[in-house]
């Protein structure tokens, strides 16, 4: 009883295609996967996170695979499915079929799927779920301002996340401007892999950048993610020069970046910046996204990879702190800084 994937989606290819499309449509409107309240590890204090759907990178460990594609996705909750076959009957593209005549498992062809969502509507037990919603701008603002009382006591605010906020430059800018007008602390989680002009404008309305540096070695970077890190590092240097508040986030991934050389290079690089970053947040690898990959019908490169214990990255924290870089594991900042 598996939800088979006929064609293994090449996310890099699709994203490159979309990336080109984005050049033409700078002001495209993102789908939102979630507006998550009471977040405490993505910026200081108590925060609301707005997840924008769409990203141009393709990190194989990504914790939010549902935010990779800018288009609507469909989750399939196999545990809820009673194999009634209604979705097979209703699909106008004939993209869904029985795996075999035993009618024990359902097969879905993602390439054929036109995202008409008729299958989602027809499912009696809500085993199919639409991922990504086109929300009105005002609705996003309204939801994000609801916890204002908590932002005030905890010195929290909102964080644009995803996906990649810079994938939707005009829209992100519009959101940030509105939040600043409402006197709300703003943070942007970004991979930094965009034109400097975009970042420069965003920086004016951003109180804090949560800036990903995945790996210092450009070859490794390209091999794992599909692009090298030149643009990312250059942007960081420029951001530092304009005195942006920056926390560096490093997802610590087994067999990728958890080696001493990587962090030695990181220290050298950070120390060469014009202004120091506020801190480094180490995010040890966890596999809790595996279920989402399965629900989306995507391959998960880290299937079966165990959860990385906090103690496995403590040496990195010690090393960074020895070099006078404030470091957290997990990124809970609490209400008192910034």
């Amino acid at each position, binding site marked *: 009883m598996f939800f088979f994937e006929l064609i293994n989606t090449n996310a890099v290819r699709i994203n490159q295609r979309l990336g080109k499309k984005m050049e033409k449509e700078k002001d495209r409107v993102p789908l939102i996967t979630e507006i998550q309240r*009471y977040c405490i590890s993505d910026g200081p204090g108590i925060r609301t996170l707005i997840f924008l759907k769409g990203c141009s990178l393709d990190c194989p460990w990504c914790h939010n695979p549902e935010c990779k594609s800018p288009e609507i996705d469909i989750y399939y909750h196999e545990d809820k499915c009673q194999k009634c076959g209604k979705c097979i009957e209703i699909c106008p593209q004939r993209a869904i079929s029985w795996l075999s005549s035993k009618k024990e498992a359902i097969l879905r062809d993602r390439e054929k799927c036109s995202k008409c969502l008729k299958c989602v509507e027809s499912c009696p037990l809500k085993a199919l779920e639409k991922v990504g919603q086109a929300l009105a701008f005002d609705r996003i603002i309204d939801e994000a301002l609801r916890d204002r*009382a*908590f932002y005030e*006591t*905890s010195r*929290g605010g909102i964080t644009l996340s995803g996906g990649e906020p810079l994938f939707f430059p005009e829209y992100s800018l519009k959101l940030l401007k509105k939040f600043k007008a409402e006197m709300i602390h703003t943070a942007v989680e970004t991979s930094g892999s965009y034109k400097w002009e975009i970042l420069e404008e965003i920086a004016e309305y951003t109180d804090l950048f949560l800036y990903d540096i995945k790996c210092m070695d450009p070859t490794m970077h390209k091999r794992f993610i599909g692009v090298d890190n030149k643009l990312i590092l250059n942007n960081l240097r420029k951001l530092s020069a304009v005195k942006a508040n920056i926390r560096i986030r490093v997802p610590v991934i087994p067999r990728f970046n958890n080696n001493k050389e990587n962090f030695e290079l990181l220290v050298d690089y950070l120390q060469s910046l014009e202004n120091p970053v506020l801190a480094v947040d180490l995010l040890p690898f966890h596999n809790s996204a595996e279920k989402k990959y399965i629900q989306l019908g995507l391959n998960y490169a880290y299937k079966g990879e165990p959860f990385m214990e906090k103690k496995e990255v403590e040496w990195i924290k010690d090393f960074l702190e020895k070099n006078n870089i404030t470091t957290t594991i997990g990124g*809970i900042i609490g209400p008192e800084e910034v």
Partner: protein
Amino acid sequence: MKDITYKDKQDELIKPLTERARKLKDSLWWKHTRGGEYVEKGVKAGIERSRYMTQSFKETDGEEWVIRRAKALANVLDNMTIFIKDHELLVGDHAEKPNLIPIYQESNYFLNIDILKSPYCPDEKEEFREITEWWKPHTIQTKAEEYIDKDEKALQNNNASMESPGYVTGYSSPTPAYESVFEDGLEGRIKRIEGKLKEAQDEFLHQNPWNGPEAMTLPKKMDEWKAMLIADKAVIRWAKRYARLARYMAEEEKDPKRKEELLMIADVCNHVPAKPCRGFRDAVQAQWFTYLLCQSLERYGSGMSCKMDTMWWPYYKRSVIDKSEQPMTREEAVELVVLHRLKVSEHGVVKSRLYREIHAGANDLFIITIGGVNPDGSNACTDLTNIILEAAATAMTTEPSLGLRWHKNIPELTVRYAFECIKRGLGFPSIKNDDTAIPSLVEGFGSGKLSVQDARRWALCLCMSPGPTGRHGGLRTRWACSSYTAKCLELSLSDGYDHSYTDSQLGPHTGDPTKFKTFDDLLQAYKIQYQHVHSAITRARDLSRYLEAKFYQSPFLSSLDDECVERGLDGIEWDEFCNPWFNVMDEVVVADSLAAVKKLVFEDKKYTMQQLVEALRANWDGYEEMRLDFWNAPKWGNDDDYVDEIAANLYRYNSLELQQNTNLFGAHPKPLPQHVAIYWTLGPRIGATPNGRRHGEVLDDGGNSPYIGCDKKGPTAVLNSCAKLDYSLQKGVLLNQKLDHNVMNSDKGFPLWYAYMKTWHKLGIDHVQFNVCDHEQLRDAQKHPEKYPDLIVRVAGYSARFVDLSVYAQDTIIARTEQELAG
């Protein structure tokens, strides 16, 4: 006194148990119940209270009932077996052995029969059978049944729409006037009562010209005063028996250190409660003696209603700060408070099966109140407040629970101690908003009756209900009753017929629900069902109170209250600050249900009333798709204005409608939405509900806590929803919150929680309490209970040891915590 700041003590707030406390804790007889049965083998009922009380009653036939009550109490105190355990510094028990608990054979015959047939029957089974038979015509339950018919009896006792009344359960929760014991001593009380008696006798005998209507109030008062005197003198004799026992044991004792301790115990028991307290040792012992009397030996009373830090403060100051009387160090004071906790942890109650079930995991409900403001509005938190919190985090016992009054100037150090308790998963202190509770209290008693100054002395009567404390002004006896609004809704969807539990016409006819044309038709039917139940509980409560005043008086408790002594009144008759209180339950299930029906039936017209009634009657069986639609309809606790507005209107309506009732003393009761552990036991009693809940599943677990699994937007959205209720219409509203164990125990846990609490306070929400547990640990504890004897979880208005709960209850607690992992 120099303020100790958090920074000074950051790393050493909570110290380990002393060796003495450890030994006492290890040898405790816990009286917890699980699935309606006592967990620890060997816990059972003791015969002595029943024996000596019955013996006395047989001898006093024909005398006034209040005198008979006092003499019976004296007979118990003069004859019961007393003991002092090894290592104890604080002494006194309510039964003849530590594993035993006394029976209240005079309150209701149901309980007597229950005990007689249970494994907890006293070893002297024949004797207890005779006692049961002798009391059958005299219990207040028997007497009450003279006034009600068969239908009313069924309504009261089937526990489908209301909790059984006080004359069936014997339930009560007084606030003894501890201050008058501390300040006057019982000798002082006796002097005052003798003066009143003499004055009355003189007036009665020498009134000239005779004024009948006035003078003939005196005999009853004189009986009351005589009873108070009998009781007070007996209590002094009883305490002195402990002094003699301690002295005798000291003579036999080889260890010089223990000998000295025993002599100290003798000195304290010789002194209190007869004379005013000198220092902290006296005050702790006097409180414990008084508690045993008022809430156990004289009659059963639940709770431990007192403002403990304020009440003990003058004596603590003398002993620990000034060192002028019974000098001791701060550490010794912490140990003494720990020993007090251990005393409470061994204190148990023989209860009917119903209460053994709904107090799952607990000995009984003991809630001590601390913090808040002084009568002048200044901060009342002291180092003693912190010590009481520290002792709780040190002892790690579920009982007594603490209620912390949070006000706008609460010191950060006190907050820090509270956090230390909460992050350890104790589930308390439960936190009440002083700035919401005080205006609500003043308003609740009716204009001008309770001053703001008096209201500021409030303490929790039981889990959640605030009431004034002190030498006078505390209502001496209270009793709550619970009503189940989900049953009212169920009845409104079945023309008053209860299909799911009693199979009877439980409520009035409110029309065929399939013919309801509008949402208002449904609301109208609900309102009639609601009022039917609430008139019945107010009636039952008043009848109970009337009979208790005649046949279940508490002369000792009454003797401590200045107002009762002044007026020659029994506590139960004391009418000035009438503090009625009703636990109105399941409102969240009702609100979620109403919202779902409004949306899916009357607005979207996706389903008809006919379909809904059929699906509910079938317990959603065969209607899963429809059930999911109702389950996914807007739910309370997500800051969703659609359902929140329906909920706010429901709470408002339920309050105003309840207040249509006027009780015996002219007061209009306000609701107190809270659930104890009834949300489990009620599951089988409430049929399927339109919020998508099936018959048998639990109800909502608080007063305004979102239904389990329905708060999808996290704790901030929950608080925002809760802030939409009008708390001035409620006596209190219980809110359960779950917080992530890892975050709370990280170094940012405190500042985050503190910020959250400041917002909670600012939003004017009445109450909050926390479960902080790791669900992995809970799952492991289910499999390996032996590894987790001290794992504590918040159940409702109290905490319990996780391993003491039934699997059904444990699963509910786990379900409650799992949704918080996203945090």
